[in-house]
């Protein structure tokens, strides 16, 4: 997994609440057995005017000119602004895979669905929670200022706006540690192998019917 330490990037505002994982990556693309290549189908139903299916040449499909990601000024955006309950719906990890593959490094929203929030950290994306008032300011700035960029620093947990002002954000220490160092979750857990083995032995005593 890629480490996340600092990132400065172009910001795109997606001004909708309750964006669900079906919208982030429609289910027909879940049929892939790989982890990569989902970026061109991120927000597929909003981004294109036709119906997308896996295997299509996405560069030839008609783009929806009204969808914010297609505005030329947001090309190459890597920071996504969103509204409440972003990523609600299914547990599909394809959602962060698609965001990551498209080039997003961070999402900033007032709230997220739990599973999606978790899945972001496992895939090198930093989901930042800010209050609604601050979100309104960022939305207004990203919409009014062309080329609007934010600098995100995970170590100091701050976002720096173009005017130099900083906004701080919270992130749980263990998630921060893993993301900052790009640590593989399984490797971290296996450092506690002795505890797992000990627990398993005790569990077998208490619930022998679970150990065939």
């Amino acid at each position, binding site marked *: 997994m890629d480490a996340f330490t600092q990132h400065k990037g172009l910001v795109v505002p997606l001004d909708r*609440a*309750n964006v*669900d994982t*079906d*919208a982030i990556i*429609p*289910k*027909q693309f*879940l*049929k*892939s*057995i*790989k*982890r990569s290549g989902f970026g061109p189908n991120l927000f597929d*139903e909003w981004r294109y005017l036709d*119906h997308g299916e*896996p*295997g299509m040449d996405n560069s030839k499909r008609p783009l929806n000119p009204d969808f914010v990601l297609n505005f030329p000024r947001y090309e190459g955006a890597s920071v996504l602004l969103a*509204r*409440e*309950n972003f990523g*609600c*719906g*299914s*547990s*599909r*990890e394809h959602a962060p895979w698609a965001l990551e593959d498209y080039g997003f490094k961070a999402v900033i929203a007032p*709230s997220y*669905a*739990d*599973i999606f929030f*978790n*899945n972001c950290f*496992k*895939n090198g994306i930093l989901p930042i929670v800010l209050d609604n008032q601050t979100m309104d300011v960022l939305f207004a700035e990203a919409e009014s200022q062309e080329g609007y960029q934010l600098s995100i620093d995970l170590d100091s947990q701050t976002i720096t706006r173009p005017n130099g002002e900083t906004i701080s954000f919270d992130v*749980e*220490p*263990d998630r921060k540690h893993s993301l900052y160092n790009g640590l*593989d*979750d*399984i490797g*971290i*857990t*296996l450092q*506690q192998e002795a*505890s*797992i083995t000990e*627990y*398993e032995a005790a*569990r077998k005593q*208490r*619930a*022998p*019917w*679970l*150990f*065939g």
Partner: protein
Amino acid sequence: MAKTLYDKLWDDHLVAENSDGSALIYIDRQLLHEVTSPQAFEGLKIAGRQPRRLEANLATPDHNVPTTNKERQQGIDGIEDPISLIQVKTLDENCDEFGVTQFNIDDIRQGIVHVVGPEQGYTLPGLTMVCGDSHTATHGAFGAMAFGVGTSEVEHVLATQCLRQKKMKNMLVKVDGNLGYGVTAKDVVLAVIGEIGTAGGNGHAIEFAGTAIESLSMEGRMTICNMAIEAGARVGLVAVDDKTIEYVKGRPFAPQGEHWDLAVKAWNDLHSDADAHFDTVVELKAEDIAPQVTWGTSPEMVKPVTGTIPNPAHEDNPVKKEGIERALEYMDLKADSAISSIPVDKVFIGSCTNSRIEDMREAAEVAKGRKVAASVKLAMVVPGSGLVKEQAEAEGLDKIFVDAGFEWREPGCSMCLAMNADRLESGEHCASTSNRNFEGRQGQGGRTHLVSPAMAAAAAVYGHFTDVRDIEISRLSSTENGGDA
């Protein structure tokens, strides 16, 4: 200290606590299916890891398998969609390579993971259980801590039998009283979601309790816990009682002999202590719940069948107002019109919410002796597993459905998420017993209305939503004793 059921399950599975409040939790069992497992197996291979406990995993293909009899007769080779074929084949290969038990596409025990687990007794009280599918909360009906995970976590559980988790808060949803005639578990859970909203349970484990929940069969309780996720909660729970134990007894994976006695003793403690503390409590009266129909593009956009479609003009909150407007436009519905006036183009009875034998019976009772309305293009019944199908056929339910003009299909997720050929065309309204009505869920441009099996069957017969309480139903002999098979 008094504990909730969730507290007990959590404490019982604690491997290690970290200083930051997160914990390493032991996972007793995992269910695998073809859509969210390939990348997990790929990850194991890349890292050169092996599953820690093979017997703690059970796999079956469900999301993407075809459900037409024609395709299924030829087994795996009958799958016409090349991508579905690759996924189902990949599951076969991975299970063979690693030695994971699988009920493959030709196995009578194949079906939707959340139907198969309980049916096989693989789901047991007191377990922690995960699956790469958000409706894993279903298994909480057995007093088990069950939740959906992403593919990285599937791999994590395969490799370590553990997950790093933060403890959730406790929420109690209490439904007391007697459910009226024609009001089912599905209506209860939709009413709960209507009350607390799709984010109402975020960060919580919800325990469903109260006399109305206690009176439900195990299958009804599964329907309720199944949709905890639509209320924002990853975990839904119901306390263990005699019904739970009776249901599990004798199933293939259930403990036997001496182990059975030991297990029952342990399971009897799986309820919240009388004075346990809940962070949030929501109470509903069973008598207030009517058959429900969702009218919008989120499960919380729900009304009683006797109600009318909301008018955005009466909504003060601008975000909600816009949500209603957007939903009305997408659904092509008029504010203030009657729910019962919504016409139905297709009907889908199935999914992990409502595809068990009781659901089949409930729909058949309405369909019996009636005909699907001419205006309905397709009405399909998709049993949740090969064994549900077999049981339903033994009871003659397939015949009732076919005589009425329904299609009787092979088991799978089918039109719940429309990954296979079963889907809505743009603009079509569907009465569906599934759990999600998001834009495009059942096919691009498709308009989903979530309802109970009885309400779906009634909509099929009348061509629009109809209050099942107003129509005569034929009691089937198999349901006379409550019929909790």
